[in-house]
């Protein structure tokens, strides 16, 4: 983990926090995108979330759980900003504005399907598989019971498969 960087950042070392941004930005961005469904809104969410995280770092008691703590901030920030907005689905061209085309295009069918299932199902898949969080951490980020996380993962995989098969 990155306890030393976090310790320095919590004492006001902005360079250390910059390194934290380098490490966790992608995970935060993918999760924000899974909630907002818009490549630009996800950037706004990330910007505000990292600023909030920097200001709250002193209150983080378990640095080894920074990632799930950060995702919780992203989740809350997304809800605060986009409570009243309707979910949108980004087009492939929009995704290609932010992701490397070599990494995205090889599995574009998977990503397009992922963006077309319901946001609550997409979020569990992103947190569990793309962001590599444990089931218990996913439950904490989304504030739902662990068994609900498990059932949502099962259903989300099924829905993603159905969308992929139908294309």
């Amino acid at each position: 983990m990155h306890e030393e960087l976090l310790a320095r950042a919590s004492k006001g070392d902005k360079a250390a926090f910059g390194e934290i941004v380098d490490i966790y930005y992608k995970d935060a961005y993918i999760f924000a995108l899974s909630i907002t469904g818009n490549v630009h809104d996800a950037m706004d969410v990330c910007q505000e979330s990292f600023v909030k995280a920097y200001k709250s770092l002193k209150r983080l008691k378990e640095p080894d759980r920074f990632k799930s703590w950060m995702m919780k901030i992203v989740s809350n920030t997304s809800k605060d900003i986009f409570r009243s907005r309707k979910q949108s689905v980004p087009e492939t061209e929009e995704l290609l504005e932010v992701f490397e085309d070599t990494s995205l295009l090889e599995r574009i069918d998977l990503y397009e399907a992922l963006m077309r299932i319901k946001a609550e199902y997409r979020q569990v898949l992103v947190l569990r598989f793309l962001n590599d969080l444990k089931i218990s951490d996913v439950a904490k980020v989304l504030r739902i019971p662990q068994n609900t996380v498990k059932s949502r993962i099962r259903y989300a995989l099924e829905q993603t498969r159905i969308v992929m098969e139908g294309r």
Partner: protein
Amino acid sequence: MKEIKRNKDIELAKALESEKGRLKLKEEVLYMNKKKIMNELETKKRSRHIKFVPVFAASLLLVFSMLATSVLAFPGIAAKVAPNIPLVREISERDQEIEDIRAAEQTKQLEIEELKSEIEELKMTIKKISDEQIKEVETSPNEDEEQNLQLQTLVVEFVKEMYRGNYEKAARYCTDEFAQTVIKSPQDVIMRPSSTAVVFTQITNVAKVDDSMFLVFLRLNDSGEEMEADYQLDFEIVMKDDAFLISFVGIDA
């Protein structure tokens, strides 16, 4: 058929898992957004400095006021020596007006302070819940005080049992599903299960999501040290068969 679909879902999960290392953000996107974040941090810092400007201006004003008062002191003496000089008389009258305005402002300020503290007291009261004196903060409309106290007592007693190590007993306050977490993973429910020095510092009144779901937020400290920051437990309570049961507890900063 079902087995085939299940295998496909497992393959899909594996595919997603392998994507975590492959999916890459464009470097310029990361660079641009990182720059925005770091600029925002700098702006916040600068804006803190800007806050000092009015303080500095006020200090400067105070110094000038003191100087002016000193200057006015001399006409004061002059007023005793030669009170009939028109200029001296006018300065004395202005001096008196300024004093009156200052006194009126001070009185107003005191009234505002009193009103503020009255409002704070209205929002925050010390309440006895399950033999504990806990500061209650009203964060949502309090529709049913009896139910409010009942749910607050439920969460406080639940936490007490957790810190006593009586997980089985604590589980009785929970839904069957959440009871399993309480018994098997108490570390996912409270911060330091081994601690015995728990102090309740604040509780919110009950927020009603709908007729069968309620939320209560409890702040506590289990470090045994006053200097350590509190942490928060977010409770989700459901109504099941006419009984209130805890369905989820989230540890929060």
